[in-house]
């Protein structure tokens, strides 16, 4: 199929220069590549800039209320497992007002493809800090800097027993399309954290990796089965060492030809290494005052975790099927016939 088949007739109203434009295009490309017909696709969103996305996709769409996209998407997928269901959400919609639904859709492993646009700011309400804004971040609602510790979305996803986590960047179209296709192919709740720039209220928030001349040094695109090599000259690799005193494992940068360079295994059930990889470079995410020079680890992009587990809708529909198979009661009249009755 062609990306144009997934474009709706609506004028795209993201601000000029907003990272959401790129994500929108990546979604249309990914959906075309996946090739599921438009009428079999439902895109559910909550409220926020990101949640406008369904209007621009020529599929079934539902732009609902703030934070509840996850619960509504759960209802769509559970009742109709044959549909492909996407959820569009942001760092506020997903991690603040919709936090409960977010962790529970992950815990249940509902087969949803969740695009979480993380611009670390509330854009639609014009510039308040979000649960992913770094500590000390100055915004309209935090004029003296926030005093809150932010969420690191990956940590939350893994804490909720997530089976799929990918991270991508608005300006990296190929990785974004790959992540969306992988999310769709994963059976279970797939979370794709899309690092997007808010050109109006938080411009340059991901500049550390978004700037073209920095990206190769500051990020690594992980691919299952491939060596973890990065750098403009592909001269660096990642290895894991265990501190002999504390037994805490750490990731370190080693020369690319070091025999210790890790090969990425996204299908490993144990999340320990996935967590370490997902947390690389996140000290800059945690605190505005973090000393960037102290951390030479790249931010991980691509599919970090992709493991198999039974999905909720599959399990519940199977249970219904097996109970129905064993039972002789399938209609209302058969049901009432099971009652203790008497005649008047």
């Amino acid at each position: 199929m062609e990306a144009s088949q997934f474009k709706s007739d609506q004028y795209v109203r993201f601000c000029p220069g907003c990272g959401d434009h790129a994500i929108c295009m990546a979604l249309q490309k990914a959906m075309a590549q996946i090739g599921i017909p438009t009428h079999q696709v439902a895109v559910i969103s909550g409220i926020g800039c990101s949640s406008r996305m369904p209007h621009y996709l020529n599929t079934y769409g539902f732009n609902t209320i703030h934070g509840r996209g996850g619960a509504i998407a759960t209802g769509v997928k559970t009742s109709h497992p044959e549909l492909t269901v996407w959820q569009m959400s942001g760092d506020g919609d997903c991690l603040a007002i919709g936090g409960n639904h977010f962790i529970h859709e992950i815990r249940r492993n509902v087969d949803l493809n969740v695009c979480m646009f993380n611009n670390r700011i509330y854009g639609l309400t014009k510039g308040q800090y979000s649960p992913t804004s770094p500590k000390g971040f100055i915004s309209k609602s935090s004029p003296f800097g926030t005093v809150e510790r932010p969420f690191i979305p990956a940590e939350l996803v893994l804490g909720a027993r997530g089976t799929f986590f990918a991270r991508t960047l608005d300006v990296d179209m190929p990785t974004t399309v790959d992540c969306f296709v992988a999310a769709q192919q994963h059976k279970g709740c797939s979370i794709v954290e899309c690092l997007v720039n808010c050109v109006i209220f938080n411009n340059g928030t991901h500049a550390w990796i978004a700037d073209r001349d920095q990206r190769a040094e500051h990020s690594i695109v992980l691919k299952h089965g491939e060596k973890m090599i990065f750098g403009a000259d592909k001269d660096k690799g990642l290895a894991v060492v265990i501190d002999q005193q504390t037994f805490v494992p750490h990731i370190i940068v080693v020369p690319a030809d070091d025999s210790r360079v890790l090969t990425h295994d996204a299908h490993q059930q144990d999340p320990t290494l996935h967590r370490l990889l997902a947390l690389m470079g996140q000290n800059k995410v945690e605190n505005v005052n973090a000393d960037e020079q102290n951390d030479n680890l790249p931010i991980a992009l691509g599919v970090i975790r992709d493991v198999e587990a039974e999905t909720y809708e599959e399990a519940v529909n199977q249970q219904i099927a097996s109970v129905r198979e064993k039972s002789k009661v399938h209609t209302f009249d058969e049901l009432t016939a099971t009652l203790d009755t008497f005649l008047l």
Partner: protein
Amino acid sequence: MHQILKIIPVVKQIVVRFCGDSGDGMQLTGNLFSSLSAILGHEISTLPDFPAEIRAPQGTLGGVSGFQVELGSEVYTPGDKADVIVAMNAAALKVCTLGSHFNHPQAHYDDQFALYHRHAIVIVDTDSLSDKDLEKAQYHTDNPFMELEIPESVQIVPVALTTLTKEALKDFDMDNKSMLKSRNMFALGLVCWLFDEPMDEAIHLLEDKFKKKPTLIAPNTKVMVDGYNYGQNLALSIHQIHIDGQPNEAHGTYTSIAGNKATAWGLIAAAEKAGKRLFLGSYPITPATDILHELAGRKDMNVMAVQAEDEIAGVCTAIGAAFAGDLACTSTSGPGLSLKSEAIGLAVMAELPLVVIDVQRGGPSTGLPTKTEQTDLLQALYGRNGECPAVVIAASSSANCFDYAYEACRLALENMTPVILLTDTYLANGTALWRIPQLAELPAIHPQSVPEELKGKYNPALRDERGVRYWAFPGMAGYEHRNIGLERDAQRGTISTNPENHEQMVRARQAKIAQIANQIPELKVIKSPETNENSPMSNTTLLVGWGSTEGHLHAAANELNCDLAQFNYINPLPRNTREVLSKYKRIVVCELNTGQFAAYLRSQLPELRIEQYNEIQGQPFAVERIVKFVKSIVD
């Protein structure tokens, strides 16, 4: 209303209250007795009255659990006061005697508060009146009867229940604790004797009840039969009472059913009739949880029941299922309805069918979770942001919870709107006779669909001639569209902030609800039993109620000899409401709140003069108090 039992042993109806410790099995006993009575052809109405605590300390006042049932003919309510009390311990005796005043240190029998009347029979377990028992129940003397000042006209029947139960079980190899658990069956047998109810039916019921624990059948049967036979020994001190009530119900096959179960089955029937999958999104909340329990257990009926992470997710998963084309429901109580408000607004705006069941309880906030009240009416009508009309209907008996749950589904599916069904603790936990319908005899349900010719041209703002938008859902090729909680353009269905368009849409949503008046029955007045000069209230005075108070108001109207209009349809009101109400000189709206329906009626029919009678005690009405009030204002 109640005859003096000693003199007239044949009665039309009788009220029995089983009362004991939470662990004494009073709910089971009451339910068995009610089912037995129903099988024997009596009408029944029951009122389980259990403490909020899961398990209070044994023998204490806080742990008393009661079950009241009225049986016979022309049974409208579980009865104001009991004719027969079975008190399994000292605490139960005290609670029955003092009613809501049981915690007052100086309280004694008072006609206003006692749960039984002055000519009642009170069967008491004398083995449970030891010093220790009396102390736990906070008695100050060693004579509970004197201390409580129980009137002499009350017939106390002392029975050594514990001793007799142990005696009955002496040939069974059972430990003391298990034997004590069967005391309720001795009481049940005794009550069966009292009302001349045959043992063979009772034994059959017991066997059925314990079919999953067959070892319990023999001992429990033995104890029950011994209880029955013991009654013969009592024959010198009390008379048997014959209930000579022919039920008024139509011919048919009946069962006894609790309101929550009837509600759940109404949804099941509607789904099958409509050809839709039933989806329930719900979060446990007293007193609505039994609906979730029932539907979670009905996988054989293809029901999808999701226990969501919270109330909001309960309604939102349902909205997701409605968007995807299912018959979607959510069940809750008042606090949950508050949490669901925004999402119900979404369903109003997105114009999706959705059934919201609010089993009302005492509020506000956590309030009285196990008690009954009608205080969510205005929340159901108005408790959302914006101009946000939804259909509101109410069930008026435990049995017709089935009909109104079915009706809620019909109206939602045919009109693309949320429908809020109000029931309450009293209906939900109470049981009544239910005539079991065949699916074929239930009204047809035609879910709104979309005409073939709109394929490729569909948008979510397109409406039929009634003003109801067409329903297309994922999976249907050629009808792809984006639905929204934002305001939509009346023609194109896309986001619009145009001022005139918004007003047009607000009025379109309102008109859609208003036209439903054409699809619901007209209001029918229940006429006073007699019309003559001696009944000045007939044709002039109208009691008005809504929802669960129907039984009590019917009994009160009969006693007052006045008319009754009981509303099941609240928004929209039946189209003849003005015509009916304007005929009466006096209109008294009776509700278990401070006057919510009265206020609503005044807003809809401002020319009418409306008086009101209200109780807010977490309890059903007492017929006697309504009668007293209405007489006081008419005189």
